[in-house]
C-alpha cells in the first residue's frame, strides 16, 4: 500500500492546530437525523402512526433546512464547496486527498451526503402520499394521488427504509475504515465542531445564527404547511 504510506508520512510531519470545521447547524442536523431515523423506525414498527407522521415532518423540515444551508451556510456546509466532479473523486480514490490539508467533506464523502439526503427525501416524500383513508393513517398529501398510486407508494415506502439503512451502514463503515486508514478522527469534529488540521488550513467561519434561524423558519414553515395538507392543494 504505497499510497497509504505516502499519505501518512507527510501527515505525521505536518504541524497542526485545532480549528473550526463544522458549524452548529450541520452538527445539530446530523445528530438530529440519527435520532429521528431511529424514531421513525420504532414508531413504524409499533404502529404509532401519529408519532411517525409528526416525526416525519420534523425530518422533512431538517432535510429542507440542510438543503437551504447548503447554499447559505458556512464554507464546509455549502454544496458548492464540497461537491466535486468525477475527476476529484478519482483523485481521492488514488490517494491524492490529504486530510490534514483539507477540511470538510472529501470528494467521496460529498457523494455520500448527496445520496443520504436524496434517499431520505425520497422516503419522506413517499410517506406524505402513503396510506389509505379507509384503512388507518394517511400522509397529508394522500388525497392528491389515486388509490392505486397511493397503494404502490405505500408498498415502496414499506421496504425502502432498507435502502436507507444500507447506505447508513455504508456511511458508518466508511467513517470507520477511512478514519482508521488515515489515522484521522472523523467523528470528534462532527460532535465538537473542531479538529486538527495543518496550520495553513483556514478555520471555517463561526455559525451565522441569524441566517440559521431564517433558514429554520423557512424550512419549518414549509414542513408545517405540508403537514396541514399543503392547502389549497388538498
Amino acid at each position, binding site marked *: 500500500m504505497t499510497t497509504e504510506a505516502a499519505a501518512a508520512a507527510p501527515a505525521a510531519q505536518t504541524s497542526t492546530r485545532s480549528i473550526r470545521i463544522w458549524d452548529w447547524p450541520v452538527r445539530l442536523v446530523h445528530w438530529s437525523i440519527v435520532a429521528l431515523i431511529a424514531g421513525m423506525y420504532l414508531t413504524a414498527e409499533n*404502529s404509532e402512526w401519529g408519532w411517525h*407522521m409528526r416525526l416525519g415532518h420534523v425530518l422533512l423540515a431538517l432535510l429542507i433546512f440542510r438543503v437551504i444551508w447548503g447554499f447559505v451556510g458556512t464554507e464546509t456546509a455549502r454544496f458548492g464547496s464540497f461537491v466535486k466532479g468525477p475527476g476529484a473523486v478519482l483523485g481521492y480514490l488514488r490517494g491524492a486527498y490529504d486530510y490534514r490539508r483539507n477540511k470538510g467533506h472529501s470528494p467521496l464523502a460529498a457523494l455520500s451526503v448527496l445520496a443520504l439526503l436524496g434517499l431520505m427525501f425520497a422516503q419522506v416524500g413517499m410517506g406524505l402520499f402513503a396510506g389509505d383513508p*379507509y384503512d388507518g393513517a394517511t400522509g397529508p398529501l394522500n388525497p392528491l394521488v389515486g*388509490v392505486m398510486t397511493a*397503494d404502490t407508494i405505500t408498498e415502496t415506502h414499506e421496504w425502502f427504509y432498507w435502502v436507507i439503512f444500507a447506505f447508513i451502514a455504508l456511511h*458508518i463503515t466508511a467513517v*470507520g*475504515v477511512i478514519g*482508521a486508514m488515515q*489515522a484521522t478522527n472523523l467523528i470528534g469534529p462532527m460532535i465538537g465542531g473542531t479538529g486538527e488540521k495543518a496550520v495553513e488550513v483556514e478555520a471555517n467561519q463561526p455559525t451565522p445564527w441569524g441566517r440559521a434561524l431564517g433558514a429554520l423558519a423557512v424550512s419549518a414553515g414549509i414542513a408545517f404547511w405540508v403537514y396541514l395538507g399543503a392547502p389549497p392543494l388538498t
Partner: protein
Amino acid sequence: MTGKTSFRLIAITPAIALLAACGGEAGDSATQPAGDPPAEIEQRHDNFEEIGDSFKAIRAQLESGDPDMAVIQASATDIHERAGRLDGYFPEGSGRDAGWDTEALATIWEQPEEFEAAKAKLLEESEMMMTVAADGDAAAIGEQAKALGGACKNCHDTFRLDDD
C-alpha cells in the same frame, strides 16, 4: 489526537454502532409469548389484505372515469365472500393483549355484541355493493363505496389498534 489508543477508538466506534444496530433487531421477537402464534392471526390478516385490495380495485375503477363493471362486480363478490369468513378468525387469546404481533384489540372479546354488529354491517354493505354493482350505475356504486368504506372504518375505530 496522537497515539494508538485514539486510533483504535476511531476504528472501533462505528463497528460497535453497527453491532448495536443489528443487535436491536434480534431483540424484537422477545416480546412475544412462547409457542407459535394462533394461525388465525395470519389468516385474518391475509383475508383483510385481500378485502382491502378488492376495495381498492373498486375505487380505482371509479377514479378511472370509465369503470369496468366486471372488475367491480368480481371485487364486490370477493369482499362479501371474505366478510363471511370473519366469524372463525377471532378465537379468544389471539389479540394484542395476549402479546401477539397483531392490531386486534381486547375490545373484540370485551364487547362481543358490538363486534358482531360491526361484522354484520360489513356483510350488509358488501352485499349492497354486489347489488348496485350488478345494476352498473357508477354514481350509485360511488355512494355505496363510501358506505362500504364506512363499514371498514367503523370496525377499525373500535376494534383495531389506534392509528393516530
